[in-house]
């Protein structure tokens, strides 16, 4: 095996740095040909592969605090790749790659049953209730590396896998099989003006994401860094998106903790 080392691409998002500006959302839309409608205020049918949620500590004025939390697809590894959505797809339209750790979604294969949406605990999947329509002329900015989706299929964040493909092409032409950390970055990580999103190979100790999250692969990828947490850790979805926060209430908000429970010490 020439490329024996399996990659595990993942993300670490620093919630102390995240300002909630929404640039990641638009960077994603622009890169991935995300459609838009006249009214996008019904957030249940508004397609945003990357969505920034607002958390509040629930305290009254002036003790109130808010925190923003960007939510891409978590690319759950589950138990050996049995992520919630992959396990339920009857069409083999979504799959977990052991080589990259990315959960793929093939639109032409999907027939729109939406089991995966029901299975995903992060609401990271979206259904195309309508055919995408770009106002006359606007189809000019569509990215040829990502195929526009049609009505009736489910779509979600791909960790900009096409960027991996393009980077690999370049590497191949240069006679390489391995990518540098900066050669494959998602659109959101690249755009974030605060530098809050780090992206890379969680298995590679040289990559920022590994250093920040310190994932413990022996224990379902749980972070060793006490300021790092994952969403709904207790479900055992083994997500590959990690969050950093110095604020305890934020870390607690990442899961449904009992009052006497300590975040980060689940199980």
């Amino acid at each position: 095996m020439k490329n024996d080392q399996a990659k595990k691409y993942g993300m670490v998002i620093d919630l102390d740095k995240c300002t909630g500006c929404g640039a990641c959302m638009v960077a994603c839309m622009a890169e991935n040909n995300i459609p838009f409608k006249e009214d996008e205020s019904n957030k249940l049918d508004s397609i945003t592969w990357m969505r920034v949620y607002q958390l509040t500590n629930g305290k009254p004025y002036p003790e109130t605090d808010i925190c923003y939390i960007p939510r891409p697809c978590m690319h759950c590894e589950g138990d050996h790749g049995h992520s919630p959505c992959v396990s339920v797809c009857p069409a083999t339209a979504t799959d977990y790659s052991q080589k990259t750790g990315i959960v793929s979604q093939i639109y032409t294969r999907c027939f729109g049953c939406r089991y995966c949406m029901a299975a995903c605990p992060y609401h990271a999947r979206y259904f195309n209730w309508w055919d995408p329509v770009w106002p006359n002329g606007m189809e000019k900015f569509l990215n040829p590396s990502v195929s526009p989706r049609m009505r009736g299929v489910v779509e979600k964040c791909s960790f900009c896998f096409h960027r991996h493909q393009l980077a690999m092409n370049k590497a191949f032409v240069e006679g390489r099989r391995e990518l540098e950390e900066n050669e494959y970055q998602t659109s959101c990580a690249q755009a974030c003006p605060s530098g809050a999103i780090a992206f890379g190979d969680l298995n590679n100790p040289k990559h920022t994401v590994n250093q920040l999250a310190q994932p413990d692969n022996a224990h379902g990828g749980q972070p060793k860094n006490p300021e790092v947490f994952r969403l709904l850790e207790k479900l055992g979805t083994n997500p590959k998106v990690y969050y950093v926060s110095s604020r305890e209430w934020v870390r607690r908000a990442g899961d449904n903790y009992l009052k006497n429970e300590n975040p980060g010490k689940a199980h």
Partner: protein
Amino acid sequence: MSKKDEKEKAIALTGDSEASSPPDGAKKEENGSGGSILLFFIVGFIASLIVGWIVFPKLLYSQKKQPIDFNHALHVETVDEGCQSCHFFRDDGSFSGVPKLTQCTGCHEEAQGEDPEETKLVEEYVAKGREVPWLVYSRQPNCVFFSHAAHVKMAKMECVTCHGPIGESSHARIYEENRITGISRDIWGKNIAGLKRNSWDRMKMDECAECHASEAIKTEVSIETPMLGFFNNIIRLAFPGTEKPGRKNSVQTQHEACFVCHK
């Protein structure tokens, strides 16, 4: 077709003399009808075979002429680096595919010879700065991602393996477009049954799988068409324990995740 015509056609086809006698008796009719039942079966059978094998393919594909009758053979002779002279890799790893007008302009700023096709290129396209609307025989549907770099640069494959000896052609052949899918006939292949003699005769996913199912290539990217996967699953279920131990690259397909070739 009127009944009479059909009858006459049936006679002509079978040469059954009995059928020509007037059907007047009940008994005779029973006998005759026994024969005509077979006859009608054969007529239907043959007619549908003709429709299916000959008429249908003609109807299914529309024929389009290339804007310019391009002479590959002549060009390959003239240029230095063979196919790569016009179909090259860019520095970013992408493959240029069909040349843009600027590449033609490099040599054909003005007509170099008398050929009316070249004159057409210079007058209609070069002079007006219009791109030539080439019809691409090997264009895959938009859901396909194909890396030329992986195949040509890393696996050192020859262009001919998939594209055939197009470089030897001195005329651009007719481009046939599937009326249902809008996709070039070259993908399914010239043979309507989907059979092929050469590796370049078809460009469906089965062709990808054919190579990628071999052990050597499986280690890189192993793929399985959905249909093949379906049959393999049946075999696996019917004869448990027979599946070959192999590298499992993904969860659902046990092969490479579909993302590698689909977008």
